[in-house]
């Protein structure tokens, strides 16, 4: 019954999305009856409701392990803990697509319900675009990825969920990322709506900005969570692997970051109109490319994609329709957008333009590196593109961008003089020099980490300079947001540099009683013992670690786990966080003579990477709150003024 309710709700939502597209499209024609436009908001809200209902039905099916549903039987198991039963709902293709579409419909419902600041005609075009995007993905779900298909006979037991995915990180990571990906659909629809109705104005940018910020905050959180998940769950000790799936989340983030900054220029100074529209289209396009192309495996392995050519063709057709359509619309209509205001060379705008260009170049590099294997295969070569390309080529653009970031926020809008920057520049140089000296005292650390230390230190100092001479209480939230986000980037950069340059690694075979040193720690193997969990058994290695300086002994318990449904072995790393770094232990299994293979890392200040990421997200959230509050204040002031200006009785 639940599965049928879910499927019915999905069909209803799909039908409403098509209605929304048709009604919205027709309402743009001159002389259209007003009821067409008026129907759009209720349609969008209903569509969101039904999509959520459908997703809720899937959650119930997974929570109760209804084995008559094919998706549950293939991806779940009665012996799983309840939490992982529920999160298993989106740990598979169909379920995650439903979550994606439900998020899309919900964000459409939110704009329909909340957004009253745009001209009605533009709003209708926006909702039509939202319906257009949603209807295609509903069709994809219903025709080639139906999550509610019943089995002819209920399965006696489920197949289980990949144990790597049985982790709290997974419970939060995809939904967060999806909120970000799909939130960008709003920016996409806004851009299309503005192109169709010729409404690229500062007001349009102000309306779009909180949505972009919201999506960007979730995207940032999703990437941070994903990076940390890979770091502790995969047990490789790395936090970013330039894997196509990771790149798929980084590309929309880069586009959204550029969009965020160009939208601010459009809102404040009425410049960069065409560019902002293009970025709005590209940001969501990257989300779609990320979710679909990469998840369906065409990039990681062309073979996996060919397993289901129907799905592949469907996805490609949708992407061609949406991305190709929007970019074509851009090509045809962007010429009609009037040029925005001009600005001087030394100005905040220039710095933001430079930031945009460099971010876009980074995006291009990541896109090229991610797609290169696809093109290489056309000429018969099989290649994989990895860190040697991304790190080196990325740095060429990332380092100048970070340098611009240090002084950009200090510049004034419109035009500025270099002389005003003399004092901050001295402070920044001092910070950079100090960092360079401290870093070089650690020995030969390589050029890239050195640049990371220098720029990180400069950025940390530079980010707080815009607060100089301000009263903390009267500083707007939006400025706090920028300061904290930029500060977070500096902090994360210091963490990355420290991890790259100062990590100490040991790979040893240890018997009980043996001790090894890694960095400042002496690690002793106490014992090896079996432990059992709800759906796994493990051998646990117990390690006692102590610093040379003495202090409290900490105990690490890395495990090699064997899950029984499906049967699979995983290694569970053990982490101990200290203020100055993390001790990371992975057990590699037994070797001859009763010894155990252990991999140990001491990673100074590695946690700064994710701490910085969280600060970036916090900054975005503060900025969003600030913009929303400023809008509310502005609108209530406008209402008061209009009341004051009541007509004087004659």
């Amino acid at each position, binding site marked *: 019954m639940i599965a049928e309710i879910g499927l019915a709700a999905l069909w209803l939502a799909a039908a409403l999305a098509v209605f929304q597209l048709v009604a919205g499209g027709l309402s743009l024609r001159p002389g259209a009856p007003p009821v067409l436009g008026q129907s759009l908001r209720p349609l969008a809200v209903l569509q969101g409701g039904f999509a959520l209902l459908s997703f809720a039905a899937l959650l119930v099916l997974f929570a109760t392990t209804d084995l008559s549903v094919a998706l549950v039987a293939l991806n779940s198991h009665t012996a799983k803990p309840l939490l992982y039963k529920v999160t298993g709902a989106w740990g598979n293709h169909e379920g995650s697509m439903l979550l994606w579409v439900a998020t899309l419909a919900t964000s459409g419902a939110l704009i329909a319900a909340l957004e009253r600041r745009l001209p009605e005609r533009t709003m209708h075009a926006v909702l039509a675009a939202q319906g257009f995007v949603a209807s295609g993905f509903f069709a994809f779900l219903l025709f080639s990825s139906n999550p509610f298909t019943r089995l002819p006979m209920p399965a006696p037991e489920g197949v289980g969920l990949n144990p790597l995915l049985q982790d709290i990180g997974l419970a939060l990571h995809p939904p967060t990322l999806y909120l970000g990906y799909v939130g960008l659909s709003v920016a996409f629809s806004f851009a299309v709506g503005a192109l169709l109705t010729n409404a690229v104005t500062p007001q349009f940018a102000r309306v779009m900005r909180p949505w972009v910020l919201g999506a960007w905050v979730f995207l940032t959180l999703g990437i941070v969570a994903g990076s940390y998940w890979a770091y502790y769950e995969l047990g490789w000790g790395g936090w970013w692997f330039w894997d196509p799936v990771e790149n798929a989340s980084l590309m929309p983030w880069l586009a959204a970051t550029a969009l965020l900054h160009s939208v601010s220029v459009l809102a404040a100074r009425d410049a960069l109109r*065409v560019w902002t529209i*293009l970025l709005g*289209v*590209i940001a969501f*396009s990257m989300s779609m490319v990320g979710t679909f*192309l990469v998840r369906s495996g*065409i990039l990681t392995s*062309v*073979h996996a*994609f*060919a397993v289901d*050519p129907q799905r*592949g*063709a469907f996805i*490609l057709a949708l*992407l*061609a329709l949406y*991305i*190709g359509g929007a*970019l*074509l619309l*851009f*090509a*045809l209509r*962007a*010429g009609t957008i009037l040029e925005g205001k001009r600005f001087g060379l030394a100005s905040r705008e220039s710095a933001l333009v430079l930031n945009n260009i460099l971010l876009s170049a980074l995006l291009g590099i990541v896109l090229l590196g991610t*797609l290169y294997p*696809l*093109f290489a*295969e*056309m000429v018969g070569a*099989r290649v994989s593109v990895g860190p040697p390309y991304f790190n080196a080529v990325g740095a060429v653009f990332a380092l100048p961008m970070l340098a611009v970031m240090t002084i950009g926020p200090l510049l004034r809008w419109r035009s500025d003089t270099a002389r005003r920057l003399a004092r901050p520049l001295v402070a920044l140089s001092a910070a950079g020099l100090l960092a360079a000296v401290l870093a070089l005292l650690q020995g030969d650390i390589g050029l890239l980490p050195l640049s990371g230390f220098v720029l990180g230190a400069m950025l940390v100092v530079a980010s707080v300079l815009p607060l100089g001479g301000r009263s903390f209480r009267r500083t707007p939230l939006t400025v706090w947001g920028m300061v904290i986000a930029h500060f977070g980037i500096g902090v994360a950069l210091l963490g990355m540099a420290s991890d790259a340059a100062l990590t100490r690694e040991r790979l040893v075979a240890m018997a009980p009683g043996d001790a090894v040193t890694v960095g400042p720690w002496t690690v002793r193997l106490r014992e090896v013992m079996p432990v059992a969990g709800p759906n796994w058994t493990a051998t646990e290695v117990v390690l006692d670690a102590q610093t040379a300086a003495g202090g409290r002994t900490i105990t690490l318990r890395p495990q090699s786990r064997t899950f029984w449904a499906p049967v699979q072995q995983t290694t569970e790393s053990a982490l101990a966080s200290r203020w100055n770094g993390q001790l990371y232990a992975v057990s590699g299994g037994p070797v001859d003579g009763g010894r155990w293979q252990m991999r140990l890392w001491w990673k100074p200040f590695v946690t700064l990477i994710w701490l910085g990421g969280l600060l970036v997200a916090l900054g975005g959230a503060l900025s969003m709150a600030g913009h929303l509050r400023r809008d509310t204040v502005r609108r209530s002031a406008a209402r008061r003024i209009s009341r004051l200006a009541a007509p004087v009785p004659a």
Partner: protein
Amino acid sequence: MKRLWLFLPVAVFALIAGAVAYQLTQPRDEFVRSAMIGQPLPSFSLPPPGGGPATLSDASFRDGRPRLLNFWASWCLPCIAEAPQLERLRGEGAVIVGVAIRDRPEDVAAFLQTHGNPYAVLAADDIAELQLALGSSGLPETFVIDGQGRIRYQHIGDIRAADVPVLLDELRKAGS
């Protein structure tokens, strides 16, 4: 001129979509072919199962006779399915060199007892060094080596009845 630039994004996208579409229509090739085909065998020497002086080396292949080089193991299930086809090949006059990968001598003996021994020479590769050196991707796998010790053909997976004539043909070509 300015208008033309506006078409750049859609053009780039069309290029990418075209590449993806092209890949979609390509027949998929599940196997990674060895890059060693056409190359001479790397130098190696392997002992028989159970140890002892080396009985098989790259020099053994350079006497002018083409041979089949078959990688297998007693623990490999498809190798059991392949055994009758190897017998057929031997019956047709093929010289088959067997290399047992990561195996125990007693298991090798038991396997050959049960499923027959088609091998003219048998060697043990306990660390899969020769298998890796030949770019083999799994077990079982069979290479055609010509009389000059050059790798001519690679058969991935177990040999089925339909593959027997193909391998005999490749052997004949390698011999001419």
